[in-house]
């Protein structure tokens, strides 16, 4: 599944594989041509991916084959004991969580689940969590606090579910409560934006001591489409909105919102999921080691300072 801007690469790839087939059958060798094309592929690749527009990055962040939470768990955790339920209403599948052993560290993993197959997607509501999802997440975070387990929160959601039931059962309240109570968690909280960081639905599990972000992930106050339809009165202006909102990892690092960019394989995490997952593990463990040395009070103050300085007004500016 090539994205629009990947079409030139796809063409070269197709020609290479055609020549390789011919190579097997015919007497003449196409080795030289193949080598040339492969060089061209590498340089074109570099050119295409090194100057992705924000909108193209959005496409990669939403790519159907991009690794999802279950892939990170499978790749990084030798054990995952999924826990269920908000103790109040249900067990939303838009956010899942449980005890996990991540590269030998016992942690509480929580995160958005998007689902891969159609059934999974429907079950997970495409990663759009309901209030019970946010409440389950908070319950598990309180449990982590009791057990003194660090929390690793994976963000990948188009946004919190905008449905009648979700409103009636307090989507706003659930997110607000998480923001409030996460700020007082006495354990390390590491947030990783792996794909889409969609607005309130993202930050609802996003109050971390550190916030990491994959290099092709995006994190935004509103979806580019939503922004375009409001400010441009034209949903098709999403590319412009994506650029204006500065939602890529580079921009967010510049704005001081994220602490580290986790590099993805060229072309995006979906082109080599294992490599992306391993890099993510490396980054998590690095910060985990550091944060584990902090006292509960220090962790709470550290998190408070981190967020209270975002948008701190400097009168001289």
């Amino acid at each position, binding site marked *: 599944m090539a994205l629009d801007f990947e079409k030139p690469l796809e063409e070269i790839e197709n020609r290479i594989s055609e020549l390789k087939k011919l190579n097997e059958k015919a007497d003449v060798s196409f080795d030289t041509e193949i080598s040339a094309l492969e060089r061209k592929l590498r340089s074109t690749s570099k050119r295409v991916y090194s100057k992705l527009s924000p909108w193209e990055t959005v496409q990669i962040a939403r790519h159907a084959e991009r690794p999802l939470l279950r892939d990170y768990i499978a790749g990084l955790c030798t054990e995952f004991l999924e826990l269920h339920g908000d103790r109040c209403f249900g067990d939303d599948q838009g956010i899942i969580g449980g005890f996990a052993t991540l590269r030998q560290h016992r942690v509480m993993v929580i995160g958005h689940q998007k689902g891969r197959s159609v059934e999974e997607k429907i079950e997970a509501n495409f990663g759009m969590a309901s209030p019970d999802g946010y409440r389950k997440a908070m319950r598990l975070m309180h449990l982590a606090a009791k057990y003194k387990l660090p929390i690793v929160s994976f963000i990948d959601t188009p946004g*919190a*579910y*905008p*449905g*009648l039931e*979700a*409103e*009636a*059962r*307090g*989507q*706003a*309240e659930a*997110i*607000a*409560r998480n*923001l*409030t*109570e*996460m*700020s*007082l968690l006495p354990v390390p909280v590491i947030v990783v934006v792996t794909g889409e960081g969609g*607005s*309130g639905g*993202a*930050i*609802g599990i*996003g*109050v971390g001591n550190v916030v990491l972000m994959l290099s092709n992930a995006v*994190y*935004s*106050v*509103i979806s580019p489409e939503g*922004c375009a339809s*409001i*400010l*441009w*009165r*034209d949903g098709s*202006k999403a590319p*412009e*909105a994506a650029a*204006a*909102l*500065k*939602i890529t990892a580079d921009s*967010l690092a510049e*704005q001081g*919102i994220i602490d580290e960019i986790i590099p993805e394989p060229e072309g995006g995490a979906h082109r080599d999921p294992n490599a992306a997952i391993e890099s993510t593990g490396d980054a998590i463990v690095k910060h985990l080691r550091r944060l584990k040395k902090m006292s509960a009070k220090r962790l709470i103050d550290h*998190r*408070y300072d981190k*967020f*209270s300085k*975002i*948008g*701190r*007004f400097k*009168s001289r*500016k």
Partner: protein
Amino acid sequence: MAWFRKSGKKTPGASEEDLWTVCPSCKAHIYKQEWEAELKVCPKCNYHARISCTERRDLLIDAGTWREYAGHVTTSDPLVFSDAKGPYKEKAAAAKAKTGLKESVLTGDGKLGGIPVSMAIMDFRFLGGSLASGTGEKITLTAEHAARHRWPFIIFSASGGARMHEGIISLMQMAKTCAAIARLNELKVPYISVLTDPTTGGVSASFAMMGDINIAEPRALIGFAGRRVIEETIKQKLPDDFQTAEYLLEHGFIDHIVSRKDMKEYLHRVLQYGKRR
């Protein structure tokens, strides 16, 4: 009432239009003087029209006791944002000129029936009361100020949500303000949230929902997602009372609905229970 604007423009021979106002809800024609005397609440249908932050402050704070706090904070333009209608900077400048405010919230302290309180009052006229860096900063600084003095903190919300023009920094104000509220809770400093029309999006999903008690004005629109977005998502029409204060009361998110004219007295009563003891 001290706060209603004198209709200074009235000249001999003023047209009928100058004397009457139309209720935005029931379309009834109300004599302007009555409209102001009723604090911009429709005497026919009890519609609570949006009012400015200074009007609201004057309704609540004892005369002569208000001191603005964090008043130096104004809008930032971290993204150098520009959209179809031009640069955000110009839009913000226009809002400032129109309202005389520097941000979408007025913050300060004063006395409410003799009780010292810290207060943040949002103003919908300022870019739809949107939550941006300056808004979040003012609310957070004022909450911290309240914490230091152990003054009860009251927020009047009126907001369409996070301000897109400041991007992710606006979103982060949800977490920033909630962390400040969490500190008030730790210190057992009362925090009362009053939700007025409209309180939606990132404001409803942060400090506005986190009051020790949440109060709303009658029929205020309160919700997370926009009505149109929800209808498109669920492919059905929403009930008429959906996302009204009354709906939220019924669903357990609001403690009480208080009319504008009773607000000061109600808050004063509530604050008696939150007195330090």
